[in-house]
């Protein structure tokens, strides 16, 4: 009845239970759906913001209609989010009345040989900017024609081109934003699933079902199953978020970045996997040190501190500090993917960092297993790390 084969798959049974009991849990499903809705909503909002065009109305008295018409015609070329509609007005008094009645956003009229744009306040920035450009071009063209030249001739040799050695600013901004998302997702998933893992360890310890399990299978298998189950869940959830995010991005003006983001996203998943396994074992230990759910706050404090260090370290480090941190586990789990995103990383660097992180994960699995095994069956109050480490089994 009991064969070596059975014992080998004991961890698999535990993994299965962890996953099944979690994905059939309503709060988990609702949380995931809410998060997906948030991602979709955020991307949708960004896209709408980017696509949206301002419609402005420009008032003009007869002597300014020609110029205002030129502004209205040329505005979309100057600012692709601006549409200008021309409203013809009889005289200055009518124009002022129209402004006050909010029938027009601004009033264009000539003053002492120059042009003046009058509006109630400075809200119509894009209209002002477009008007300036168009009026300047028009007047410049007229003036050039008067002296027998062309605008092109006058402007020849005056342009200043730009070239960026470290990539352009928009790419850097996108890398920064996605880097923040990576760090946040890691922090969020590690905290939520870590807490969940720790409390399920306490649940088993508190209800003493762990004694029934311990009599049936080696505790190593129980730990392995729990860590694997929660890692799988975290990874699946993360994949869903990333997929929704990347697919969503293709509907926004940033869609050209999606192919460039896929590589770093894959690295992020690899780092997440190794980093999460390392942390999961520590969360399991935090759970096993507590005897009741109320103790978890205390036993998990060092871990929550570590998570905060990772979170803020991941966000704030730059320069040499960032390079060093990108190799130091477990912080490397968030810092290296961020560096990969920013670019300029040698091919061996992510591999080396991942190797170190994996080695660290192995070490925490080993230490964690010993602590977990010894603390788990001790009852009556909190167990200190030292007690757990040196306790007889």
């Amino acid at each position: 009845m009991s064969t070596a084969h059975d014992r080998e798959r004991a961890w698999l049974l535990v993994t299965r239970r962890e996953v099944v009991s979690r994905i059939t849990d309503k709060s988990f499903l609702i949380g995931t759906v809410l998060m997906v809705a948030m991602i979709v909503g955020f991307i949708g909002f960004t896209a709408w913001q980017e696509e949206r065009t301002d419609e402005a109305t420009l008032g003009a008295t007869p002597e300014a209609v020609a110029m205002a018409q030129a502004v209205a015609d040329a505005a979309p070329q100057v600012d692709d989010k601006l549409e200008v509609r021309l409203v013809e007005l009889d005289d200055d008094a009518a124009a002022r009345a129209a402004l006050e009645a909010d029938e027009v956003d601004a009033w264009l009229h000539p003053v002492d040989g120059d042009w003046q744009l009058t509006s109630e306040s400075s809200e119509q920035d894009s209209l002002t900017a477009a008007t300036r450009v168009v009026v300047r071009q028009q007047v410049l063209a007229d003036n050039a024609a008067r002296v027998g030249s062309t605008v092109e001739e006058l402007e020849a040799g005056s342009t200043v081109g730009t070239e960026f050695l470290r990539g352009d600013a928009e790419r850097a901004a996108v890398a920064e934003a996605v880097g923040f998302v990576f760090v946040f997702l890691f922090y969020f998933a590690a905290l939520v699933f870590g807490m969940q893992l720790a409390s399920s360890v306490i649940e088993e310890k508190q209800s003493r079902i762990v004694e029934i399990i311990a009599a049936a299978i080696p505790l190593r298998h129980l730990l392995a199953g729990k860590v694997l189950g929660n890692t799988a869940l975290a990874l699946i959830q993360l994949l869903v978020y990333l997929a929704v995010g990347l697919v969503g991005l293709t509907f926004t003006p940033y869609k050209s970045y999606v192919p460039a983001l896929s590589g770093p996203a894959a690295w992020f998943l690899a780092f997440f996997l190794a980093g999460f396994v390392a942390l999961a074992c520590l969360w399991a230990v935090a759970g096993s040190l507590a005897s009741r759910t109320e103790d978890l706050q205390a036993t998990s404090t060092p871990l929550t501190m570590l998570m905060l260090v990772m979170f803020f370290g991941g966000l704030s480090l730059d320069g040499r500090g960032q390079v060093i941190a990108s190799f130091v586990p477990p912080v490397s789990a968030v810092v290296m993917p961020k560096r990969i995103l920013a670019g300029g990383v040698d091919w061996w660097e992510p591999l080396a960092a991942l190797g170190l992180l994996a080695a660290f994960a192995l070490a925490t699995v080993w230490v964690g297993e010993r602590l977990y095994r010894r603390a788990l069956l001790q009852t009556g109050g909190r167990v200190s790390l030292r007690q757990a480490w040196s306790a007889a089994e």
Partner: protein
Amino acid sequence: MLEIRELTRRFGEHTAVDRVSFEVPAGLMTGFVGGNGAGKTTTMRMVMGVLGIDEGEVRWRDQPITRLDRRSFGYMPEERGLYPKQPILDQLVYVAQLKGMGRVEARTRVQELLERFGLGERGKDHLEKLSLGNQQRVQIIASVLPKPAALVLDEPFSGLDPAAVDSMVDLLREHTRDGVPVLFSSHQLDLVERLCDRLVVLAHGRRVAAGTVTELRDAGVPRFRLVLGGDAGWVRNERGLDVLDLDGPTALVEVREVGAEQHLVAEATRRGDVHEFVRVRPALSEIYREATA
């Protein structure tokens, strides 16, 4: 047969279990009694391998016990609880699978046991939705999965109503009938006396008594009650006897020298009528109180 030999466990300076030895013979119910902190739970946890053994050993079928042996045992821990927020059918199947049963086989067996305890319709209910008595039934089902080679039950009857106790006892008897040794602890001496074939008494971490109920009751210094036609005052002068109680024609004596009770009867019949002469066996509770004092 399950054999516990010189088992010792210390927690720091405190010796919780001190060289305890006893046997749990196949096919018999062995009751494990003792006050709070006597070391019953610690002993049972060591037997099940969930707590390390400092000294001594546990033997199963004349061999040192192994993890696989223990895996075939049914165990009910002291403060029970399975997963409160999981359907009972699912978690019982899970426990059975951990003990090496196939999934399909486990489902069939669990459903069978649930029906037997009147819980056949409630497989999908979360454990916490059940009454305490029903939770206890689920717990006992968990301990008899799959077919246990031995049963180690820590306070299995606490919190059960008499009907539940009876159905549980029936289930246990089925197992002893198949030759399974059963060890269970309890505070309820009357229950232990009624159910147990054998008894082990623990006090302050030591085994203070062990044997069948009859053996234990016979084990002490024999006592006799004598009821005469007349006054029994003369009994005080008889040799080899301690008089524990004297009340008119009735005397309760303890025999110090072998055969002294025979002289007593002879003397009594010589002096007059003897209405009653009977061996008095102490109640289990009395033995227990003396042993654990």
